[in-house]
């Protein structure tokens, strides 16, 4: 009896510690949300902490008035969709043939792909390549050069290995070719893993920054992270408009918070739906890390 009481107290202490971790993770985001919904006056007077003061949508409206920022949001959404579809397709193409143990050249191919995980050409040689291929300032540079992640390929391959060979063999006996087997057996079974990979690819593109910074100077093709970087560091048209007196005196801090929210909310929206899948996905990737 005494023992179980002690256990209960321990359980509660652990729960409280975990609650602190929850607070640490959430409070910064809550603060930004509160700032984005507060009035400029409240922010100037330092009255905003974790709850909106003088609730207003003003900051959001001012961000939405910046047509370059809004266009960048749509452009990034489109880019993310395209990249996810292309990347998933290529990842399937790259991993599926590997489950055929007797495929000649399989080892060589595998080694060739894995090697790129450990040795890459480097920033400057890659930049020079984009120049040679005329991809600088071409929107394709945001899609093709990173359309296959070897890490994701390993995740999918590890999953495909877990599908029993007997399923494939019985289909082959009935005369199904590799493509048929892929479509009829493997793809339906790997839906959860594909969902995980789609999440990884989509988040990767949505959050992608350095490729745009290095390869894209035309503001038309600037993805949202590049725009956000400019807003945060006061190099954006919103800021200019405000300094020139076009906009009402909204504290630029509120604008920044709202801009951060615009880049964050899409991730927050898809994340809970895919959470149950990605844990299995990550664990699979670790098998052959």
């Amino acid at each position: 009896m005494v023992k179980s009481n002690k256990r209960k107290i321990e359980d509660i202490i652990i729960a409280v510690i975990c609650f602190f971790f929850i607070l640490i993770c959430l409070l910064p985001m809550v603060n930004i949300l509160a700032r984005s919904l507060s009035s400029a006056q409240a922010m100037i007077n330092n009255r905003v902490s974790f709850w909106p003061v003088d609730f207003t949508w003003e900051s959001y409206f001012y961000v939405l008035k910046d047509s370059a920022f809004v266009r960048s949001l749509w452009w990034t959404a489109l880019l993310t969709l395209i990249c996810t579809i292309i990347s998933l397709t290529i990842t399937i193409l790259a991993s599926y043939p590997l489950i055929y143990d007797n495929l000649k050249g399989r080892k060589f191919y595998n080694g060739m792909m894995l090697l790129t995980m450990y040795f890459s050409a480097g920033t400057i040689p890659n930049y020079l390549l984009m120049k040679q291929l005329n991809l600088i300032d071409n929107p394709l540079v945001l899609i093709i050069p990173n359309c296959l992640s070897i890490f994701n390929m390993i995740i999918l391959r590890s999953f495909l290995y877990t599908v029993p060979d007997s399923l494939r063999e019985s289909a082959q006996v009935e005369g199904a070719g590799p493509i048929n087997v892929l479509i009829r057996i493997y793809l339906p079974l790997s839906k959860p893993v594909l969902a995980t990979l789609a999440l990884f690819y989509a988040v990767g593109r949505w959050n992608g920054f350095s490729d745009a910074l290095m390869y894209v100077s035309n503001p038309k093709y600037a993805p949202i992270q590049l725009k956000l970087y400019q807003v945060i560091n006061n190099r954006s048209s919103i800021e200019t408009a405000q300094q020139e007196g076009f906009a009402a005196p909204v504290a630029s801090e509120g604008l920044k918070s709202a801009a951060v929210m615009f880049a964050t909310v899409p991730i927050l929206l898809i994340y809970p739906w895919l959470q149950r899948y990605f844990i299995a996905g990550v664990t699979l990737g670790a098998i052959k890390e």
Partner: protein
Amino acid sequence: MKQKRSGRKAYLYIKRTWTLYLMLVLPVAFALIFRYLPMTNISMAFKDYNMFKGVWASPWSDPIFKWFQKAFQTKDFWFALRNTLMLNGLDLLFGFPLPIILALLLNELAFKRYKKFTQTIVYLPHFLSWIIISGIAKQLLAPRTGVVNILLGRIDVGPINFLTEHGLYVATYIALGLWKEMGWNTIIYLAAITGINPELYEAAEVDGASRFRKIWHITLPGIRSTIIVLLIMNMGRILGSEFDRPYAMANDLVMKVADVLSTYVYRVGIRGMQFSLTSAIGLFQSVVCVLFLFAANSLAKRFGERGIW
């Protein structure tokens, strides 16, 4: 006769597998063009780049290691190298143990729903970009208007310039790295913990072992090999460098501690057009990284673990 049969065999093999090879065409082309072809541009590190001649026609530099010598004589390069090692080292020192502790805590959490909820929340920061996180941090930690300094002001502390003083910048940089990845990195340990035989816990229960003793004698030894492999592999990456994180967080006042190899190469190479010098630095970094990884891998194997290849 025999030849005919093997010819027939080859024909059958190709007939059965050509679609598989067809599938591999795109991935292979991708790897060759975007991963292997740029490696030819590494030659830049040994050439005097001439914009009009391009990479191939540019003359070889004399002496051949000219740009490496030049890099090693540059003060900013040494700063960048030192900062890369320092920031990665501190990341390892603090970022490695915390996920293990958090995973143990989560594993001991008795309320299942609450455990799931905690996991959902602590995994979340992993999915935010460094640009977003730097945006949050810059507002949260602003000296006058940031909520941290407002709260500190109420107890008469500060204002503290978290992002513009050298020591504090480094601390903030490390802390934000912890914030982003501590939850995510528990996944692998939690998976390892589920692999532990539950009979061990039952036996310990019968013996009346306390919670702490069960963690110490069953859970930790159960994930020992995961810990060792991850630790060694992370040590192998000590000279690797991220780009977004230091680039998004740095500012002019802290360049001395914030500039790392990746940001230095970007600034001097792509912005400053010194392709040869920065190619040499990049090559130096890649080669040392690979050597470290090899060393780490054989170290892992010496510990009787599987390593990464």
